[in-house]
C-alpha cells in the first residue's frame, strides 16, 4: 500500500501523464481545425464577368454592346460589310490571332459578300428566312451555332470563334474557325522511357483527347466536360471507360470537380490540390503524367483521368503508394528484368528515406551494433570532424538539395556544370578541409542517387522531405527513433485514402491477384483480372489462363 501511495505522489509520473495525453489531444484538435479550414465558405456576391444584354434586331446596337464589353482590346476586329445582292448590313467580330485568317476569308467573307438568291423555298430578301438561308446556302463552315445568350456568345468569341451579326436578326451566328500556335508533340522530358511510344500530351485539350481516341476505337471511352475557374472558365475533361470505371468512384470525382471553387486553374496541379483527400499529407494522392499511354493503361484498369486545357499534365485517380514506383516501361519490357528493377525501386525508395538516418543512428548511438571493423573505419574517418553526425548530415543534405535546386532552373549545360562543380569540388574540398567525413559523403551521394530512381517527380519530393524527418528522429532516439518514424509513416499511409482507396493497397490484401503487380511484375498472361482495388465493373481482362 505504502509503495502505491509513494508512487502516486511522484510528480514526474503526473507530469508524464499530462504530456502523454495532452500532446495527442492537441495534435488532433489542431488537425481537425486545419481540416475544417478547407470546408469553410465565405459569402460572396455572385460574380458575372460578362454583362448580359438582350440582342436587338438592330445590328448597330448589338455591335455597340459587344464593343462595350470587349472593345477596349486591340486584338478584337470588327468588320462591317453588306451582304451580296442585298444591302443588308452585316458585321463579323473575331479575335486576331485565334482565327484561321485564310479560312475566314475563303469560307465566310467571300461567300457572304457574293450571296445570290438560289432556287429554294427560302426568300433571301425577307428577314424571317435570312437565318435559314445563310445557314443552308451561304456559310461554308461546318461548326456553326446560332446563339441567343449573350454571355455564351462573348465567351465563344473570346475563345476564338467568329461572331456573325446580321441586321434584322436578334440572334448571332457563332462560327468556329479556330487556329492558334501550338507546340508540336514531343516526348515528355520528365517521363522518358527507353522503350515505349514517344508521345506526350500538349497544351491543347482537344489534341490530347484525340491522342487518347487514336489509341482505341472502344465506344466506351467517354469524355465528360466541365468548366473550371470562375473567371477563366477552362475546359476540363474527365476521361474513363464507362463499362469499367466504378460508378461510385466516378460520382465522387465528378462531385469533387463540381465543388471546386477557384478563379483560375493554371495547371492540373491546382485541380489536384483542390480535389485531393488530405491536404496535410506529404504524399501525393493524385498521379500526374504527360504520357497518353499511361493514361490509357490507367483507365483500362478502371481508374479515372482528368485532363485540363492548357497543360500537358493529366491527372489520374485514385492513386496508391505503389503506383509512385511504377513506370509504363515495366509492362513494355520482359517480366523478369522488370520485376527486379521494380524491387530495386522499392529498395531505392527505402534507402532514400532512411540511409542517412541509419548512418546517424549507428554512428552516434549504437556503434556496438555494426561490425567492429566498420565501426573502427567510420570512427577513423571522423577524427577531426568538428560537428556531431546530425549536423554533418544536415550540412551535406542541405547542400545536395541546393545543388539540385540550382541545377534544375539553369539552362541545361550550365546546370550540368553546377552539378559537377558542386558534387566533385565541394564534396572533395569539404572532406579535405575536415568538415565532413568521407563516409558521410558516400552516404549522402548514395541517398541522392537513390532518390532519383523514383519514376515520378512528386513521389521523389515526398521522400526527400521524409528523409529530413527521419534524420531528426534518428538524432533524438537512434534506431528506436527510426523504428518509430517508420511506424508513423506506416500509420499515416494506412490511414490515408485516395478517392476511397486505401493508399497502401495492395500492401494489404484485397485480393491475391493484386500482388501480381506489386513488388513483382508477373508475366502479362497471369494478370487475367483488373486490379480489384478500384472495384472495376468489368473485372476480367482476358479469357485465357
Amino acid at each position, binding site marked *: 500500500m505504502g509503495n502505491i501511495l509513494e508512487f502516486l505522489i511522484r510528480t514526474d509520473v503526473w507530469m508524464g501523464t499530462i*504530456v502523454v495525453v495532452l500532446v495527442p489531444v492537441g495534435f488532433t484538435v489542431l488537425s481537425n481545425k486545419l481540416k475544417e479550414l478547407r470546408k469553410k465558405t465565405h459569402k460572396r456576391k455572385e460574380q458575372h464577368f460578362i454583362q448580359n444584354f438582350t440582342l436587338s434586331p438592330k445590328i448597330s446596337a448589338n455591335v455597340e454592346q459587344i464593343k462595350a464589353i470587349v472593345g477596349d482590346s486591340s486584338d478584337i476586329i470588327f468588320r462591317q460589310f453588306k451582304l451580296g445582292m442585298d444591302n443588308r448590313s452585316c458585321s463579323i467580330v473575331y479575335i486576331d490571332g485565334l482565327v484561321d485568317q485564310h479560312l475566314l476569308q475563303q469560307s465566310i467573307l467571300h461567300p457572304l459578300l457574293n450571296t445570290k438568291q438560289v432556287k429554294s423555298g427560302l426568300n433571301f430578301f425577307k428577314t424571317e428566312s435570312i437565318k435559314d438561308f445563310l445557314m443552308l446556302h451561304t456559310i461554308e463552315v461546318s461548326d456553326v451555332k446560332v446563339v441567343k445568350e449573350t454571355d455564351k456568345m462573348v465567351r465563344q468569341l473570346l475563345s476564338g470563334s467568329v461572331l456573325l451579326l446580321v441586321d434584322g436578326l436578334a440572334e448571332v451566328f457563332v462560327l468556329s474557325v479556330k487556329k492558334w500556335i501550338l507546340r508540336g508533340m514531343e516526348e515528355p522530358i520528365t517521363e522518358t522511357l527507353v522503350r515505349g511510344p514517344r508521345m506526350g500530351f500538349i497544351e491543347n485539350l482537344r489534341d490530347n483527347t484525340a491522342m487518347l481516341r487514336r489509341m482505341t476505337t472502344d465506344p466506351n471511352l467517354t469524355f465528360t466536360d466541365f468548366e473550371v475557374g470562375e473567371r477563366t472558365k477552362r475546359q476540363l475533361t474527365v476521361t474513363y471507360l464507362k463499362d469499367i470505371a466504378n460508378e461510385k468512384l466516378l460520382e*465522387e470525382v465528378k462531385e469533387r470537380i463540381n465543388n471546386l471553387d477557384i478563379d483560375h486553374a493554371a495547371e492540373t496541379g491546382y485541380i489536384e490540390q483542390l480535389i485531393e483527400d488530405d491536404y496535410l499529407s506529404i504524399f501525393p494522392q493524385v498521379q500526374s503524367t504527360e504520357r497518353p499511354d499511361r493514361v490509357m493503361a490507367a483507365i483500362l484498369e478502371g481508374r479515372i483521368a482528368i485532363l485540363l486545357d492548357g497543360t500537358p499534365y493529366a491527372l489520374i485517380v485514385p492513386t496508391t503508394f505503389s503506383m509512385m514506383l511504377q513506370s509504363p516501361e515495366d509492362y513494355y519490357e520482359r517480366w523478369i528484368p522488370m520485376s527486379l528493377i521494380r524491387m530495386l525501386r522499392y529498395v531505392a525508395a527505402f534507402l532514400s528515406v532512411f540511409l542517412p538516418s541509419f548512418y546517424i543512428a549507428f554512428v552516434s548511438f549504437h556503434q556496438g*551494433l555494426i561490425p567492429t571493423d566498420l565501426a573502427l573505419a567510420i570512427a577513423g574517418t571522423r577524427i577531426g570532424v568538428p560537428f556531431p553526425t546530425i549536423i554533418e548530415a544536415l550540412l551535406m543534405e542541405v547542400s545536395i538539395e541546393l545543388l539540385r535546386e540550382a541545377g534544375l532552373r539553369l539552362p541545361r549545360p550550365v546546370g550540368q556544370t553546377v552539378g559537377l562543380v558542386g558534387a566533385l569540388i565541394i564534396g572533395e574540398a569539404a572532406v579535405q578541409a575536415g568538415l565532413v567525413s568521407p563516409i558521410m559523403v558516400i552516404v549522402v551521394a548514395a541517398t541522392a542517387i537513390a532518390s532519383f530512381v523514383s519514376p515520378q517527380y512528386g513521389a521523389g519530393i515526398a521522400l526527400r522531405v521524409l528523409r529530413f524527418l527521419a534524420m531528426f528522429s534518428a538524432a533524438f532516439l537512434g534506431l528506436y527513433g527510426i523504428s518509430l518514424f517508420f*511506424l508513423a509513416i506506416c500509420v499515416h499511409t494506412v490511414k490515408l*485514402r485516395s*478517392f*476511397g482507396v486505401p493508399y497502401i493497397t495492395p500492401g494489404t490484401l484485397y485480393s491475391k491477384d493484386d500482388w501480381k503487380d506489386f513488388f513483382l511484375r508477373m508475366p502479362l498472361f497471369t494478370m487475367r483480372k483488373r486490379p480489384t482495388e478500384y472495384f472495376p465493373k468489368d473485372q476480367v481482362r482476358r479469357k485465357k489462363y
Partner: protein
Amino acid sequence: MKMGTTRITTMQMITLLSSTLIAVGIFTLPRTLAIEVGTPDLWICILIGGICGYLSSLIIVSLSLRFNRLTFFEFNKLIVGKWVGTILSVCFIGYALLIGSFEIRSMGELTQFYLLEETPISVILISMYWVAMYLLVGGINPIARLIELLTPICIIIFILVFALGFKVFEFNNLRPVLGLGAAPVLKGLTPTFLTFSGLEFLLVFIAMMQNPKDAKKVAFFGLAIPVSIYLFAVVVITGGLSVERMKHQKWPTFALIQEYEYEGILFERFESLFLVVWLIQMFTTFVVCQYVAAKGVSTLTRISYKKANYILLAAVYIICLVPKDLNELEKMGTIIGWTSFVFSFIVPGLLLLIALVRRLKQDGETKDET
C-alpha cells in the same frame, strides 16, 4: 467516401491475432521456461500451451458466434444480466490495459537496455504512445491494415534471424526428451499462458469480422503462426545456449543472436534488425490491447471511442510505471498469466455453459464498425 469493406477480412484477422500473440514473450519466455522447467523439454510446454490455447479459442469462437455481431461487452449482459456483465466487462477492460502497459513497459526496459542507455524510460514510452495514439484514433480499419502490412515482414525476419542461429545449434542440448518425466513440463505451462494471453480478444474481434464463419480458421492459423515461431525460437535457443545458460541470461533470445556472427556481410550481427522488428510487434500488441479497452469503455459508457482512448492512455501510462524494476514487472506478468487463464477458459466456458442451458442466441443487426 470509402471503397470496399469496412469490416476486418479473414486475412487481417489472422495477422491481427498472431501479431497480438507475438509480443514480449519472445524475449522473456525462454528464460522463465528454463527456470520453471529446468530440463530441455521447453518446447513440449509450448506445444501443449498452443493446444490448450486452441481449445480455449474454440470455446471463445462458439460463444461469439452464438451472438452474431455482438462483442463481449454487449453479449455478456444478455447471458448473466446487467450487473455481472458490467463487472465482467470492466475486468476485461482492466485486463486489456494491464497487458498493454506490461508490453510497453517491457519494450521500454529492453530498448533502454540495448539501444538507449542514457535516455529516460519515460521518453521512450511516451514517444511510442504518441505514435500508437495516431493509429488508434483512426479506428479498427487502419489498425487491421497496418498489422496486415507489417506482420508478414516481421514473421519472415523473425524466422530468418532464428534460422541463422543454427550456426551454433547443438542437438545434444535438446536431449534428453522427458528425462525427468512429465512433471517439469506441467510446471512450465503457467508462463506459457502469459505468452498466449491476447487470445481472449477474439471475444471482441469476431463481431467485427467480414465473415464470422471463418472464425475457427482464424483461431487456428492465428495461433499456429505464433506457436510455431515460439517453438522454433525456443528450440533454436535451447539448442544454441543449453538450458543451464538460458537460466542465467537476462534475455536468452538476445544472447543467442549475439552468439553467432556472420562475417563478411553488411550486418555481422542481427540484433538491430531483430530489435526493430520486435519493436513493431510490441507496438501492434499494445495497439490491439488499447483498442479493445477503448472499445469496451465506449460500449459501456457514453464516452466516444476517441475520448476513451485519451482517457485510457493516461491510465496505461500510469499503470506501466507502477512496477519499480524488472522483478516487479515479472510479477505483473505472472498476474497477467493467471488473469489470462480466467478470461480464456473460465469466463468463456461458464458463459457458454449458461448460454447453452438458457438457449440464448441472438442475431444482432448488421452495422458497420468504426
